[in-house]
């Protein structure tokens, strides 16, 4: 399997702030890969560097086998996070313009515009001005501008922001459709649920560095603890102190316990029966959201530590 994108030791700093800090990453061709991370994690900066919109201070990039995306821009579809349309141009004019910029011409362009607009339900809007579109329609049109030229590599920066659930489903189907046609799709998001359902691989980024990457299974296997959800009448407080419980949230009538992989959940269940009349008992694996929060939390802990160190060193 070849890689659509390879990043090696990428660094980009703005003054003292390192937006991207020694990031290395491979994106295998033909997969859907999610870039996850909190706001300001460096996702957009990384994507912009992949797109040759900005250049890294150091490190290597390979996009579709070339060192610079400029050489293969016509094979890439990019939906930026900051996106808009020419308000005064009609949808047809807009798509023709972007199509031409991507190297499309003539009849192919014309029929492809019709085809794409139909697929997102905007067929009747072709000769209307962009300013007449609702926000959701604009979002769909922007997606169309991204995939119009049948790109091999599609990069979507926060594609789901501002979409209602129905359009979100539509967009998801379109992304899956892209993959079925052999395209590689990268998208950044902080909507964990979407990422979990859609992505073959995930990359978690925080403070410009990669925290983890791999398939959902691979990531989960690193976090082997389980979650126990309990509901019922009684006091669950005693359970929080049990051996094997790493973390707990106890309220009146329910408890949420994180236990290590080695802990036997039925042992906890027995305890629970002793203290309460249970109405619900559930064992879960960590979901992406929890893994994410955990990882980012640990990473922030690192930060605190590393910032304190020079001070103590100075005192010695």
């Amino acid at each position, binding site marked *: 399997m070849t890689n659509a994108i390879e990043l090696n030791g990428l660094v980009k700093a703005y003054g003292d702030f390192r937006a991207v800090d020694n990031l290395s990453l491979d994106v295998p061709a033909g997969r859907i890969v999610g870039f996850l991370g909190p706001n300001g994690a460096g996702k957009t900066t990384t994507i912009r560097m992949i797109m040759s919109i900005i*250049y890294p201070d150091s490190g290597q990039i390979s996009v579709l086998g070339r060192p610079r995306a400029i050489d293969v821009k*016509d094979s890439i579809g990019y939906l*930026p*996070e900051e996106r808009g349309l020419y308000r005064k141009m009609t949808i047809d004019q807009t798509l023709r313009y*972007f199509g031409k*910029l991507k190297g499309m011409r003539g009849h192919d362009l014309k029929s492809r515009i019709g085809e794409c607009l139909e697929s997102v339900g905007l067929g009747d809007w072709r000769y209307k001005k962009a300013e007449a579109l609702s926000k959701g329609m604009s979002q769909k049109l*922007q997606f169309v501008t991204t995939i119009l030229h049948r790109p091999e590599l599609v990069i979507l920066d926060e594609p789901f922001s501002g979409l209602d659930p129905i359009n979100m489903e539509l967009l998801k189907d379109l992304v899956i459709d892209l993959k079925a046609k052999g395209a590689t799709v990268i998208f950044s998001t902080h909507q964990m649920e979407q990422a979990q359902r859609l992505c073959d691989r995930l990359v978690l980024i925080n403070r410009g560095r990669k925290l983890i990457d791999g398939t959902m299974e691979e990531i989960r296997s690193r976090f082997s603890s389980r979650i126990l959800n309990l509901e019922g009448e009684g006091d669950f407080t005693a359970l929080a102190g049990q051996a094997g419980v790493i973390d707990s949230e106890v309220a009146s009538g329910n408890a949420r316990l994180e236990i290590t992989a080695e802990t036997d959940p039925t042992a906890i269940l027995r305890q629970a029966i002793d203290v309460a009349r249970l109405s619900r008992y559930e064992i879960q694996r960590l979901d992406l959201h929890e893994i994410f929060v955990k990882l980012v939390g640990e990473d922030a802990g690192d930060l605190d530590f590393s910032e304190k160190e020079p001070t103590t060193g100075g005192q010695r």
Partner: protein
Amino acid sequence: MDKIITVGVREFIETVKTKTFFITSVLLPLIMLGMIFGSQSIAEMAEKETQPAKHFAVRDESGAVYDELSAQIDQYNEEMSTRPYAFESSEASVEELTQRVIDGDLYAYIVIPSNVLETTDPARAAEAGDEPIAGAGPVMTTLPAGTATCELGRKDGNPEVSERLKMMLNAAIVRVRFATADPPIDYERVSMLRQLVGVRQVDVVSGEETGSDMIRFMAPFGFMFLLFMGTMTISQGLLTSVIEEKSSRVVEVLLSAVSPTQLMAGKILGTVCVGALLMTVWGFVGYSSAQARDLGYLVTSRHLLYAGLYFVPGFLLIAAFLAAAGAACNTIKEAQSMAAPLTIMSIVPMMLWWLIMLNPNSILSVILSYIPPITPFVMILRVCADPDISLLQVITTLGLLWASVLAMIWTAGKIFRVGVLMYGKPPSLKELARWVRYD
């Protein structure tokens, strides 16, 4: 290159479709023509409107001038029946007359002193200049000390009235002096001998007789003004379109298809084509209408050649500058304040055009020719004013202009690349300098 052209074509079409382009390309030249040819007919129309008579009281302390003055006024009233003057002789004191003017009973009072017929010694009289000739405009000469002085008291400052009165008063007084001289001198004979000759003006290049000096002198200014307005409004259009793309967030979508440099090059190319279209239309209309009205010497093919030579680089320079300013800012207001130095500089030829036209080869004119953003405007004035302008200066100014165009495009490209993706506060000069140093 394909992509640059695609961007350029869109820029061109969208600019030509705007109202600003219509106003600049069609309305502005019409207004200019209207100002040049229409102001006279408007003035003529205004003169046809009848106005109420203006009442004057004349206190003639010499007792000799009033009759002659009223003869002058009768003649004036006959010629200008739409704005008559009514006169009365008065013995009242100046204070009383002043009160009547204040009350609105009189428009003005005139006091003619008793010594009005005396003249100072001949040498000083010669300095004082000649009797004003009717229709020759205001009397500009400063009078030597000791000259008899009349007084005109009124509330407003209408210069037409005062100039006319000065003329009539002087004509009347001079006539009386002739009549009362010892021995009397025949005024008619003297004025016959002083009859002036006309001067026919010919443009030696076209061989045509030139009409009004004023039109001939104003034409280059009109020429420069149109080019200036064209350059400024159209390149402002570029600034607006960059800011629009930034604020509507289209720009990053565009950057997924083209590099920032291609985007900027395409936009400048499109704008330059709009400018070229405008110049061609104006040049054609100006040239053919000048030919049609036998004013061919006003717009020659030489003028058009120089206009083209200077305005392509001039336009590029300003367009590149404004593209960078637009990219660095987020609102038109910010961008305009960033472009303020250029705007201020470009006013210089507007203020000094008269001096440049009068002395196209003065040190000032030459120095101004070597300041790149205003080179085209200054040079077009000089080329019009001096048909034998130094070829060396033409070549060196063009060379300097093109060199600064290249430098500006290079700098603008750097600023554009960083600027289009920057939102928030507009950058300081220091930050701009840092952007230019990024690779």
